[in-house]
């Protein structure tokens, strides 16, 4: 009996392997790139500009009414995006909406940031070790690394031993502030190429948020008050020159928030339908407004938000998803499901993690091919003069897994002796 089992196991392994490999081959041969447009917001015209490009060249930008502009015109219409080049050519306006503009203040307030699934979730987070920089001295990489498990520990990298004295000092500070070990999410800048030391933002076992810094070798831990029912899922620290911002925080219910430096104020942003695991979001900020662009597989949305966090204007555009293009449609006719270990690197959803993702298709287009293969399998069984009774499982396999099962049962053949 075991030999029969061994065959089905091989068929299963074959199906998994093929469900992984064949779609990749298919996509390598036929994949079409979707060229997501770039959205800009003009504070001069209070309108969005859309920059598209196809596979070969960048197209002329258009506004929301479809009016076409030259590249130079668009540059001039969107000074908040292109201030340095406008400054060079002397075209940077002195003020917009009564706010004085100069290149130095622009630099101070400019934020350009993108969150992709792969930046929110990265295997390197698994190290759970971070350098804690001394805030009051010249910034150099410390000789120890910090871990926060059952307590705070500093491991000297040279000797590979725990610095008990320093660890005890910090553990006491954490306990005093009511930190429940171990730490969960950490956000901060681990690089030594930076201008200032903001330390680390750390959530504890219960999900409470703390701000950790080290000054003159002493721990400085502050609890940050969170709004009610505020459960942090992702946290990204950003170093903005004006020192007004600490972090972007994404909550469990996929809401985007800003953690401001002043009084650790947390403000929810009016961005909706953003799923951090599947979409990417680009954040642009300046002294006049924020602009958020959310890209999904088949849409792009842009929000212009003022500094009081109200939406001034928004733009939404949908394009044909791959599944409706010829290659996508054919894909669904051929493959009943696929096994993905990673998404392709061109896919928004790509991360550096390997996971077993089965994507079963909601459409039932593959049924035709499955039926055809089922008939062929049946005919092959008759031709090989095999008993139908012994091949019921094979028929079921073909019915359920289509082309993958068909190949697998024919590679690992069911023979009767």
């Amino acid at each position, binding site marked *: 009996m*075991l*030999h029969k*089992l*061994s*065959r089905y*196991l*091989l068929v*299963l*392994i*074959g199906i*998994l*392997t*093929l469900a*992984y*490999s064949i779609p990749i081959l298919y996509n390598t041969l036929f994949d079409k790139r979707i060229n997501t447009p770039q959205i800009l917001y003009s504070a001069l015209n209070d309108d969005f500009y859309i920059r598209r490009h196809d596979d070969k060249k960048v197209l002329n930008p258009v506004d929301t009414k479809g009016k076409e502009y030259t590249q130079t015109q668009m540059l001039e219409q969107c000074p908040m995006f292109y201030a340095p080049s406008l400054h060079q050519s002397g075209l940077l306006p002195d003020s917009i909406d009564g706010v004085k503009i100069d290149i130095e203040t622009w630099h101070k307030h400019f934020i350009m940031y993108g969150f992709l699934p792969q930046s929110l979730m990265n*295997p*390197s987070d*698994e*190290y*759970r*070790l*971070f*350098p804690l920089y001394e805030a009051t001295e010249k910034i150099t*990489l*410390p*000789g*120890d*690394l910090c*871990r926060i498990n059952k307590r705070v520990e500093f*491991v000297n*990298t*040279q000797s*590979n031993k725990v610095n008990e004295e320093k660890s005890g000092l910090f553990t006491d500070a954490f306990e005093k502030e009511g930190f429940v070990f171990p730490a969960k999410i950490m956000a901060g800048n*681990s*690089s030594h190429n930076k201008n200032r030391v903001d330390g680390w933002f750390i959530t504890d076992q219960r999900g409470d948020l703390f701000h950790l810094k080290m000054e003159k070798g002493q721990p400085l831990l502050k609890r940050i008050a969170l709004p009610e029912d505020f459960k942090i899922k992702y946290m990204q620290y950003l170093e903005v020159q004006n020192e007004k911002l600490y972090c972007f925080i994404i909550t469990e219910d996929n809401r985007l928030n800003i953690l401001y430096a002043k009084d650790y104020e947390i403000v929810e942003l009016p961005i909706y339908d953003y799923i951090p695991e599947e979409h990417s979001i680009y954040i642009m900020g300046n002294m006049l407004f924020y602009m958020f662009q959310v890209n999904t597989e088949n849409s792009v949305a842009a929000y212009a938000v003022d500094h009081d966090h109200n939406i001034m204007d928004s733009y939404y555009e949908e394009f044909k998803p791959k599944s409706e293009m010829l290659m996508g449609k054919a894909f669904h006719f051929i493959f009943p499901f696929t096994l993905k*270990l*990673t998404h392709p690197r061109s896919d928004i959803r790509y991360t*550096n*993690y*390997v*996971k*077993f993702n089965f994507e079963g298709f909601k459409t039932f287009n593959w049924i035709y091919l499955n039926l055809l293969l089922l008939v062929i399998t049946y005919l092959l069984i008759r031709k090989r003069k095999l008993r139908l009774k012994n091949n019921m499982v094979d028929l079921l396999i073909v019915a359920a897994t289509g082309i993958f099962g068909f190949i697998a049962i024919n*590679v*690992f*053949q069911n*023979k009767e*002796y």
Partner: protein
Amino acid sequence: MFYKEWIKIRLVFWLSFVVGIGIVVAMYAIIRGELADMPTNHYIWNMINRNFVFFTLFKFVPLGIGTLIGISQFIPEITEKRLKLTLHLPLNEEKAGLQMVTFGVISIFIIFSLMLFAFLGMGRYFFPFEVMRVAAITVAPWFMAGFTAYFVTGIVAIEPIWKYRIAYLIIGGLFVKMYFVLWEAGSYIHANAFFAALLVLFSVSILFSIYRFRKGEM
């Protein structure tokens, strides 16, 4: 049965053992040299923030060991169809097949365990626990690839028909490729358990080829 298997593989076993451990030792000798030039904190910082993997040297070594043990165990069985002798032993044929595979798996397990032990043990001398934990997660699929290669070698070698041998080799190769999809440290943290389960399923696969051999496919 184990006696015969041991006579077949002992040379390759010792060779694999020496090469496997030798590579680990050589790797740390290189790292010791690198740490003389770069402070340890910068070295580790590169691992954490630059996806620097310090042990790529032996990435394909387990794969090679698994294949070699498989070849040394199964090729002598199929030259002159000696497997007939094994199947003629007064044993259940499936049991005979499983004993052969068990022996191979144990041998590989011994080599891999010692390699892993040396790798993690010596690594802990240089690096904190977390670094070696991620390292273990990263090397796990490489070792599983070694076991898989052994099973694939087995079913390919014993399969009597060339056409199917090639088909098994292709599927086996594509499966092994799934262990090397990403190169970043820690990438397989969510996939290792699934792969381990598949590996267990793979373990009895050899019976299929033996069965086909016994039933006189040619």
